[in-house]
């Protein structure tokens, strides 16, 4: 039923027959989802609220494990292994698959320490190395110019858009392979949103990106591949251009032309 594109290029992640059930729920929230995630490209997940797009996203770094009782089934392949394996080293996995959240999550520490945090967790203590990588990460997040004179200031003094870019800098500082974005601009004004979108497009040169968004136009603007989800199923995955001009599934068509409801 679903129409899933076959990705010829190398894949960053490969989801196969993936099912996810929340603690105590009778039915799985994700039903037999199979999808490839292309390397060095942006894959957007769209769909009405409750369709499971965020649930899927949070499975990629096993975020659900923070709340016990949820069950995974199927396979998510990453670097040749199934990350759903209970023995998977989650600390390692999460340094390889970073995440950006709906709201900016600047830690209550200085700007510098925020960006350095992930590296320090990995045991990097050398000051000059830290400084170099913090600067690079901030530059990559298009934030360096704005904060270079106040690295020691509290990160909460930054604006929402700046904080979100700080979170991106923090995430890329540990050089992950994949970045997960969970509606990263839903708390931001249009101008900051534009900044983040620009950044997402630039970042795909180095990381593979999966972005969940409730804003269809955003998916259209930034992504190379778009997946449309509905009631826990992946209905369609295709090149963004094709999906928005000629969706293969009727449901997709109805969703993107606003005929739902």
């Amino acid at each position: 039923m679903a129409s899933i594109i076959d990705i010829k290029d190398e894949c960053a992640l490969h989801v196969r027959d993936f099912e996810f059930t929340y603690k105590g729920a009778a039915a799985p929230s994700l039903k037999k989802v199979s999808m490839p995630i292309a390397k060095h490209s942006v894959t957007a997940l769209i769909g009405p609220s409750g369709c499971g797009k965020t649930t899927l996203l949070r499975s990629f770094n096993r975020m659900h494990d923070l709340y016990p009782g949820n069950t995974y089934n199927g396979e998510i392949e990453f670097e040749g292994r199934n990350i759903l394996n209970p023995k998977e080293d989650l600390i390692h996995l999460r340094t390889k698959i970073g995440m950006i959240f709906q709201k900016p999550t600047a830690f209550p520490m200085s700007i510098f320490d925020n960006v350095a945090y992930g590296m320090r967790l990995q045991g990097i203590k050398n000051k000059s190395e830290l400084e170099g990588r913090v600067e690079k990460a901030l530059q990559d997040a298009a934030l360096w110019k704005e904060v270079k004179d106040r690295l020691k200031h509290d990160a909460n003094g930054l604006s929402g858009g700046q904080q979100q870019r700080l979170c991106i800098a923090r995430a890329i500082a540990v050089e992950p392979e994949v970045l997960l974005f969970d509606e990263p601009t839903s708390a931001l004004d249009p101008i900051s949103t534009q900044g983040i979108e620009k950044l997402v497009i630039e970042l795909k040169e180095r990381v593979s990106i999966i972005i969940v968004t409730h804003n269809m136009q955003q998916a259209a603007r930034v992504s190379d591949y778009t997946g449309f989800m509905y009631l826990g199923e992946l209905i369609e995955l295709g090149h963004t251009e094709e999906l928005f001009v000629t969706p293969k599934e009727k449901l997709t068509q109805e969703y993107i032309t606003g005929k739902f409801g």
Partner: protein
Amino acid sequence: MTAVQKRIIINKLALAFSTLSAIIALAFLFWILGVLVMKGVHALNWNIFIYEGSPPGYAESGLKHALVGQLILVGLATFIGVPLGILAGTYLSEYGKNSKLAHTIRDISDIMMSAPSIVIGAFVYAVVVMPMGHFSAWAGAIALAIIMIPVILRTTDDMLQLVPGTLREAAFALGAPKYKVIIDIVYRGAKAGILTGVLLGIARVGGETAPLLFTSFNDNFFTTDLNEAMPSLTVTMFNYAISPYDDWQQLGWAAAFILSMFILGLNIMGRLILLMGKRK
């Protein structure tokens, strides 16, 4: 050992310590609770509700005087304290808002909330008991009310502020006058919260002993005269507990148990009301 392994070990140690401290704390607390229940239930019998206090050694001694006295004192305090607390809280939330006066009142009342209750007792002794010349239920109730007002004021203020500003604006936008907005919308919206505040306020003063020691004082006999010294569970409990008589100590534990159940009941009720309010 890599940095990550080190972190994992430190993590385990830290979590073990906090679990251990939780166990220690709870062990002590359950010990106390256990003692209270064992002793209390053991001492509990019908006589307690039927008989007044009597000298040690008498079989027909009970707590009727203290139970009724406690209810009268707390009831009277509630009667005085609740309306004043709610009205004052209303002023802070709806009129004073962020004015200097409102902030001063808030700060002072917060400090009052944690002020030593025995000092309040001393104060009421000076301004009520001394002029009257003798201890009285009024004095006790006033002392309790003074303790209660800041509690209710603060919760009322907080709960009213939780009512979204847009809800008020929406009522104004329909052409409602301010007092109507407050009574129809704000009070209604904060109903559960205010009620909880009142219950917690009552629970708070229900357990107070110190301010009653020299205001309502104590009496071993049943009375309903508000101008006389009035017995209360807390003071009775205190007196019985420090007495050397075994049967009085027994009665003391019974009183402690009854009072604790009463206060726990109020607390649980308050919690349930808030929960139900939230669930809606």
